[in-house]
């Protein structure tokens, strides 16, 4: 089916190649995981969701690990990566993209400050109990601050809550902003909607929560330690509620376009029932939204035995991280499939080894998990970790 009474598939010559490829799919995906993981940490520190004490430190470390790699896909994508810093040096303030460098880097500073406050006492303990090069590294990590009096620790705790509080709007801005970059492009009917920032934000939060659930379950399963089931159940309450909102926004966008029956639907309708039928209609909406909505509803509303809960909740979480990845693909690639000619569509071809190919994408996506594994060798993340904080401070 072709739009605008087209008798043949006609696309503008320069639209044949899809410029924003897998790296631009990955960039909002990883950024979303950053924001989502941070929200879980903040739910404990700011909103006092007591059950999430288990996740608070873990979520912060995970957010940091994802954050380290959020901008890497952009570097892979840029035609002139060595000029990337132009975005800091000569920001063109009429551009929605120009402030990204500042928003992203300030957010990372905030996360690092919070991490430092959480682990400050541990760094001091390690600096006192090690020798040589190790001691030097731990000493550097203390940043020369050695106070550990109860009063100082109380201060730390207050500051952690403060940074978490500032971090929530900052994380929201970081990801809502990514949605704004797409939503404000009036030339692209599939992108241009004020709902886009909200959709990106909601999907970011659910992907972060779902990814934390998967990581937590895997880590505990591998180490043979017990699950904190109360925390996991509470996390799934949040995930279900937020995912309902996310799917509602995603559906609203399309239902609105459909009912409006204007220019947007003229080109988007054939796209969703044509080239994106598999990844959008069937993948993103029918299977990977429908299944987790039902499964999470089941584990939240019914008294499901623990073992079954863990299995079902993790399967639902896996569906959600796939749903969000599909959503990023359908927005980024799908939007570019519509030629600006309004009378044709172009194909997207996956590549393997090219700069924006599948292999580099998988490697970049794996990097935060590898980083987390390395960090977890040196920092105590869960209360029962072999490397544990000796203090009883609430962190």
């Amino acid at each position, binding site marked *: 089916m072709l739009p605008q009474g*087209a*008798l043949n598939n006609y696309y503008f010559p*320069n639209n044949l190649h899809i410029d*924003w490829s897998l790296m631009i799919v990955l960039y909002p995906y990883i950024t979303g995981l950053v924001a989502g993981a941070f929200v879980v940490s903040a739910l404990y520190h700011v909103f006092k969701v007591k059950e999430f004490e288990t996740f608070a430190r873990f979520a912060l470390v995970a957010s940091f690990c994802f954050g380290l790699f959020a901008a890497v896909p952009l570097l892979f994508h840029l*035609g002139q990566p060595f000029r990337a810093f132009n975005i800091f040096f000569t920001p*063109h*303030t009429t551009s929605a993209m120009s402030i990204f460098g500042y928003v992203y880097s300030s957010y990372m500073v905030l996360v690092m400050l919070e991490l430092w406050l959480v682990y400050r006492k541990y760094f001091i303990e390690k600096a006192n109990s090690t020798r040589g090069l190790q001691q030097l590294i731990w000493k550097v990590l203390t940043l*020369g601050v050695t106070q550990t009096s109860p009063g*100082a620790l109380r201060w730390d705790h207050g500051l952690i809550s403060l940074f978490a509080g500032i971090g929530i709007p900052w994380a929201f801005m970081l990801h809502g902003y990514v949605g704004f970059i797409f939503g404000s492009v009036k*030339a692209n009917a599939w992108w241009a909607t004020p709902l886009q920032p909200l959709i990106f934000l909601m999907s970011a939060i659910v992907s972060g929560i779902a990814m934390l659930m998967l990581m937590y379950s895997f880590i505990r399963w591998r180490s043979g330690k017990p699950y904190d089931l109360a925390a996991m159940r509470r996390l799934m309450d949040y995930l279900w509620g937020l995912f309902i909102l996310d799917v509602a926004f995603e559906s609203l966008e399309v239902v609105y376009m459909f009912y409006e029956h204007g220019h947007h639907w003229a080109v988007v309708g054939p796209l969703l029932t044509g080239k994106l039928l598999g990844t959008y209609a069937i993948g993103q909406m029918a299977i990977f939204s429908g299944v987790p909505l039902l499964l999470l509803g089941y584990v939240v509303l019914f008294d499901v035995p623990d073992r079954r809960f863990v299995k079902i909740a993790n399967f639902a979480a896996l569906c959600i991280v796939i749903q969000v990845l599909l959503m990023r693909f359908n927005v980024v690639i799908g939007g570019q499939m519509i030629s600006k000619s309004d009378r044709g569509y172009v194909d997207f071809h996956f590549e393997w080894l090219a700069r924006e190919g599948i292999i580099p994408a998988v490697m970049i996506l794996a990097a935060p998990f590898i980083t987390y594994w390395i960090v977890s060798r040196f920092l105590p993340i869960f209360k029962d970790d072999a490397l544990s904080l000796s203090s009883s401070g609430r962190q």
Partner: protein
Amino acid sequence: MTQSTTGKGRRTFLHELVLGAMALASAGPVALLASRSRAEDSSAKTPNGKEYAFVVDVSKCIGCGYCVEACAIENNIPKESVRTWVERYIATAEGVHVEAIDKPGKMLAPPPAGLMAKARWAAFVPKLCNHCENAPCVQVCPVGATFTAPGGFVLVDPKHCIGCGYCIQACPYGVRFFNKETRVADKCTWCYHRVAKGLEPACVTVCPTQARIFGDRNDLTGPVGKIYQSDNWQTLKPEMHSHSRVLYLGLPREVV
């Protein structure tokens, strides 16, 4: 290293940190405000008051494709992209059939059998950068590498462009492309390098029917000025509100 309860001030440290952060936070917006938009900075007029426009007379285009070839040679365009192309529209009661001369030297095959018999009208429509007054590409460039030069030329500074491709997405007309050789955004410049020397754009020079005319829209004695003044022209996708400086004469309603 000793553990101390009174040692170097974490409080002092945080105090300094907060002060530093505040300094940075205030420096950021000041720097941003100082770096005004290059689009806003430049007056659309040249020092001698010229403001250019490009007229495309659809009724005169014969679809020879010389313009596409001249542009590619003049501007050394990589094979897979074009800065200008010519579309052939054949409109019937059932719908519209469109093909394009989008490669130098490309000849369009005759229309499918029966299509011409059903045609209500047929036309060749040249396309090129619209050098918009309210250019979406200029707005979205994150580093100011795309800008409006005096005279109304929308240009790309290839030494400053980071190759992010946001301008390519923002252009409603699909005229921008990623140049695989220079690895930056590329598009029609109205042959700025030629106009600066008092010459016409290459495509205008080679057009055998004067379907493409270029000139100062403020010069009411010249052909472009007269057409501009007549207000009897159309632009592509007016709903985009980008205020195109490419003025079409006799543009059929179906042309996108």
